[in-house]
């Protein structure tokens, strides 16, 4: 038979307090999960667009920040790159915001528009692989609409006509991409339409240059060659580099990244304070018992263990409901945002938050344990 699990008995003896403590820990765990979930969605969406573009090397203006805030640069640079060894194909890429009118409510809202040459196999989405897609993009004033665009943009049925940027526009079909934090909705149009909608913008000024490599070519090496050959008015990225660039933009230079990062820290502190509060009250109420233990001949080390065990038990008991609620809210978020805010759980985050939870509770345990070990055994007689 082992030791009497005094920590456990102390915890369950006060049901209400245990419930409050577990709820407190679970709440902190939930907050941490939500903030990390949003942070994760932020980085996921930052890479979504690139993972759907069939190119290995990207050119952009040095003044561009991320996909939705780019500056234009001469298309000439792209043609220069075409001559470099290992380059199979170069494709211009245009982007711009466009006010889209919801035909049902009459309200306009900004869509993010990608413009491509219909001949170029820019996108990897299955809908864009259909031969009809190319034909649709050639039709005047016809666009493809992102089915993950917010419902506020209105119906997305093929053939629907509405107004965008003072022009009549027809929905020619749909694709599934998601605009993430940068855009509430996206459109794809052919370059000739792009020129019409955004006149007088010329097509020889592009937002991104997409470079598809020949099979077997090394993207890093080609990117290096391009860097040495192209003038300073363009930046060269591999796919991994441009994704990292956009992630860095969102995480480090926007308030969004800061808010969620701060959210994690605040949740951790709140959790620590809650657990400390609970443990402290618990220790205060059991102080005569701790003094008695010392009078009987137990050492501080034992009291230390009891308090730490209580803290770890709280961590374990609070983590599970926190995780389950977080999974529920993740689902809810994905549904509420029609899939455009892809918060999703992964093992790494589950383990990371579990470690955070145990750290949180241990920290509170360590702060409050001094109260328990300060119990004076001589007090038992008074």
């Amino acid at each position, binding site marked *: 038979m082992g030791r*009497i699990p005094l920590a456990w008995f102390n915890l369950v003896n006060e049901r209400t307090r245990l419930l409050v403590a577990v709820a407190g820990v679970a709440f902190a765990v939930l907050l941490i999960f939500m903030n990390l979930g949003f942070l994760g969605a932020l980085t996921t969406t930052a890479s979504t667009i690139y993972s759907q573009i069939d190119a290995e090397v990207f050119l952009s203006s040095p003044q561009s920040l991320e996909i939705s805030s780019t500056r234009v640069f001469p298309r000439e640079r792209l043609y220069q790159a075409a001559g470099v060894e290992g380059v199979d194909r170069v494709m211009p890429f245009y982007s711009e915001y466009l006010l889209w009118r919801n035909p049902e409510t009459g309200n306009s809202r900004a869509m993010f528009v990608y413009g491509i040459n219909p001949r170029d196999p820019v996108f990897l989405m299955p809908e864009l692989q259909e031969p009809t897609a190319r034909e649709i993009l050639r039709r005047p004033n016809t666009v493809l609409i992102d089915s993950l665009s917010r419902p506020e943009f209105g119906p997305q049925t093929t053939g629907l006509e509405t107004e965008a940027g003072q022009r009549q526009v027809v929905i020619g079909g749909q694709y599934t991409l998601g605009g993430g934090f940068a855009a509430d909705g996206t459109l794809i149009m052919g370059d000739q339409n792009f020129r019409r909608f955004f006149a007088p913008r010329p097509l020889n000024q592009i937002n991104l240059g997409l470079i598809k490599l020949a099979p077997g070519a090394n993207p890093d090496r080609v990117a290096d060659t391009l860097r040495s050959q192209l003038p300073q008015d363009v930046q060269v990225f591999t796919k991994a580099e441009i994704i990292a660039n956009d992630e860095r933009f969102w995480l480090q230079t926007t308030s969004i990244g800061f808010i969620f990062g701060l959210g994690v820290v605040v949740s951790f502190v709140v959790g620590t304070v809650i657990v400390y509060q609970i443990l402290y009250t618990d220790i205060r109420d059991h102080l005569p*018992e701790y003094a*008695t233990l010392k*009078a*009987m*001949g137990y050492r501080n080390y034992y009291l230390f263990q009891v308090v730490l065990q209580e803290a770890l038990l709280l961590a374990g008991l609070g983590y599970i409901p926190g995780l389950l609620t977080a999974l529920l809210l993740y689902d809810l978020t994905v549904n509420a945002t029609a899939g455009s805010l892809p918060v999703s759980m992964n093992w790494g985050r589950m383990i990371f938050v579990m470690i955070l939870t145990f750290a949180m509770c241990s920290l509170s345990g360590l702060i409050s344990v001094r109260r328990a070990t300060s119990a004076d055994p001589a007090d038992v007689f008074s």
Partner: protein
Amino acid sequence: MENNVGMITPSGGATTLAPAQDQSLQPPNPDLAVQIQHLDYFFGSGDLRKQALFDINLALPRGQIVIMTGPSGSGKTTLVSLIGALRTVRQGSLRVLGQELVGLGERDLVTVRRNIGFIFQGHNLFESLTARQNVEMSVELTGQFNTKRAQAEAMLGKLGLADRVGYKPNALSGGQKQRVAIARALVNHPQLVLADEPTAALDKQSGRDVVTLLQTLAREEGCTVLMVTHDNRILDVADRIINLVDGRLASDTSPDGYLQANAAVTC
């Protein structure tokens, strides 16, 4: 030291001055469970320093049941907590079960405590544990995990609580709780039991029962008992009665002698 000497009033009777103390110590006597010589004790420090015990000299032979009485605030609890190794002592000599406590650090004091059974006025049982588990907490200190349950139940049985082992303190009466506390104190067969007003929170009858049980078990185990009490009705369980007044030992008699002396005062 100056302060110490200054606080001993001439009427105190304890006239041995500090420098001479060490020379006047008796050698350790193995027949004594407790051997106290020239023990002073102070609370606080600096201006707030207050002497609670003055030159206590006391020897408790093994197996003796001793009752300590005295007015409130006379230092009884302080003396018991010193003998119980619950406070560090710096002056005089205090031998408990052969071990000198003066000068011992916290670590060694804890070891001494494991050989002593404590019974408190507030029973100080763990509300979250059953009677048996409370007693087992004591046995666990000895590392006897395999037999702890049997030992706890046997001791509770001796105290008439065989049918209450699974009850939590909340479900027990005051007398039953105090008997659980006695079981906890005695289960490791300590050679010394210290009790501070164990009957104060009990009614007359259960107080009497508890003390009688304690006496019987102590005799069985041959252990020394030092019990503080104000309760005149239970003095007869003692072999000896000592009286503490204002931090000094005022009398040391047999129960009969004590009763006669007190009767003389009240008449």
